[in-house]
């Protein structure tokens, strides 16, 4: 097989490197501008000012007001705050929450925990391409419904949900609408007003910012309880010393994404389509997971007949290509992806999935290299498989 010395990264949906422009902005915040935002002295005031400027930069990316952005430490925390915070603040109105079957584990597990606390959860199905039907949302909303939470773009299959339509339904019914926009934030235009979004989660490390910084957009006037209690930072909704370097980096990453989104999206869509087309043409018995058009510009996800995903990922790694079987979180588990199963794939089919996610430094040369080595890898693994039939 072909050899390559350079490592090729096709796992931008798991995490991204920090943009060097962001690194440059962050560095002084570790040494000179290290103050605590709660301090009254000059160090604290500089930190406080940087925090508020950062809030503005993040808000502007989604058409929000800066006081509607709460900084957190991770998307998992944002999603926990959204679900638990809304659930406990609105208990008097009702105890019913609606999510989809293809949410990220931090939504799935938060919902499961809320069920144990006496809340009722409806998990909406998706079609074969991973789409939630807005009519299903409409039908599922009842008098006691307090929150609908649907992922904007799937971390595994990249399918983009009809968020605007779902948001409209929630607004008409007077139900809070939250979306986990971790994968779409900074990649496609989002307007929380036009899309009728009440709460939105986003994370810095998925968009070339540092890890440890994330946010939750909370529409002004929303009834929500904090899950962390303490010094009252972030309008009392997220007590904790504020991670200024992380947040400043997150904000800078937002600024860059806003400026480059259109051009970058077009570039990545072209590369993604070349990759998808190439894989489907060069290899037999391979299927695209997710929607062919309504998908993130950086996501390609396939399932290969007769072979298993981890074997493909390790073979690729041996050739210097970093990929994933689905989500990074699932790699320690044996069960196939709940997202693929929800789309109607059988266990064995879901086990054969491979996610290649592109990003800011993906080149056409890298796409060509994957297209060159992947057929060899698939062929070799099929030779070993008992199910191979005449595919070898």
């Amino acid at each position, binding site marked *: 097989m072909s050899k390559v010395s350079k490592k090729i990264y096709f796992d931008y949906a798991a995490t991204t490197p920090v943009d060097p422009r962001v690194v440059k902005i962050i560095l002084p915040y570790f040494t000179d501008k290290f103050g605590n935002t709660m301090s009254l002295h000059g160090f604290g005031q500089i930190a406080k000012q940087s925090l508020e400027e950062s809030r503005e930069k993040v808000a502007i990316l989604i058409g929000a007001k800066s006081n509607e952005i709460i900084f957190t430490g991770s998307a998992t925390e944002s999603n926990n705050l959204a679900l638990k915070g809304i659930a406990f603040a609105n208990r008097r109105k009702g105890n019913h929450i609606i999510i989809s079957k293809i949410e990220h584990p931090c939504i799935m597990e938060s919902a499961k925990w809320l069920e144990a606390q006496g809340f009722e959860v409806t998990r909406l199905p998706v079609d074969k391409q991973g789409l939630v039907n807005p009519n299903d949302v409409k039908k599922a909303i009842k008098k006691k419904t307090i929150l609908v939470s649907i992922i904007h773009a799937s971390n595994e299959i990249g399918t983009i949900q009809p968020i605007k339509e779902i948001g409209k339904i929630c607004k008409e019914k007077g139900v809070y609408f939250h979306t986990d926009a971790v994968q779409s934030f900074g990649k496609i235009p989002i307007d929380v007003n036009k899309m009728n979004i009440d709460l939105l989660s986003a994370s810095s490390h998925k968009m070339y910012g540092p890890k440890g910084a994330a946010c939750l957009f909370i529409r002004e006037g929303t009834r929500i309880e904090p899950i962390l209690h303490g010094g009252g930072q972030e309008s009392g909704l997220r007590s904790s010393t504020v991670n200024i370097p992380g947040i400043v980096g997150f904000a800078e990453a937002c600024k860059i994404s806003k400026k480059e989104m259109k051009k970058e999206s077009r570039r990545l869509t072209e590369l993604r389509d070349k990759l998808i087309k190439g894989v489907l043409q060069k290899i037999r018995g391979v299927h695209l997971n997710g929607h062919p058009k309504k998908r993130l510009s950086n996501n390609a996800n396939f399932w290969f007949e007769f*072979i*298993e995903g981890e074997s493909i990922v*390790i073979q690729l790694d041996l050739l210097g290509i970093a990929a994933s079987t689905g989500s990074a979180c699932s790699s320690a588990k044996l069960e196939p992806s709940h997202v693929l199963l929800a789309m109607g794939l059988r266990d064995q089919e879901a086990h054969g999935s491979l996610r290649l996610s592109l990003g800011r430094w993906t080149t056409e040369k890298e796409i060509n290299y994957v297209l060159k080595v992947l057929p060899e890898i698939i062929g070799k693994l099929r030779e*070993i498989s*008992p*199910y191979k039939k005449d595919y070898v």
Partner: protein
Amino acid sequence: MGPYTKKVIECFKNPKNYGRMKNPDGIGKVGNPVCGDVLWLYIRVGKDKKGREIIKDIKFETFGCVAAIATSSIITELAKGKTPKEALNIDKNKIIKSLGGLPPIKVHCSVLAASALEKAINDYLVKKNAKKKSKK
């Protein structure tokens, strides 16, 4: 390379004795319903110089993860040349030891491989006995 030892990756990268065997003397087909792994093991039995029955040839076909393929490969190497009785002593511990260890979550792969071999040998013994009976 992820959670695996060098030996596991080596066995995965260059697996030995894979592929289908025509007219084997014994077949062992096993599967794990949780992780979806499937392992088919084929054996051919012949005689060595001393006239003892030994596993002359062995092949596997596996649908599964890195650990499943590596354990399949190593068990064929461990069993080749052994008498059926000796081969039945190859258990999960021997397989794990030969691989320099397996992640705890993948230990079941070694159990799967050992039971495939056991099934293939039993299949051979049952067929052999049936032949003997029909001769009588």
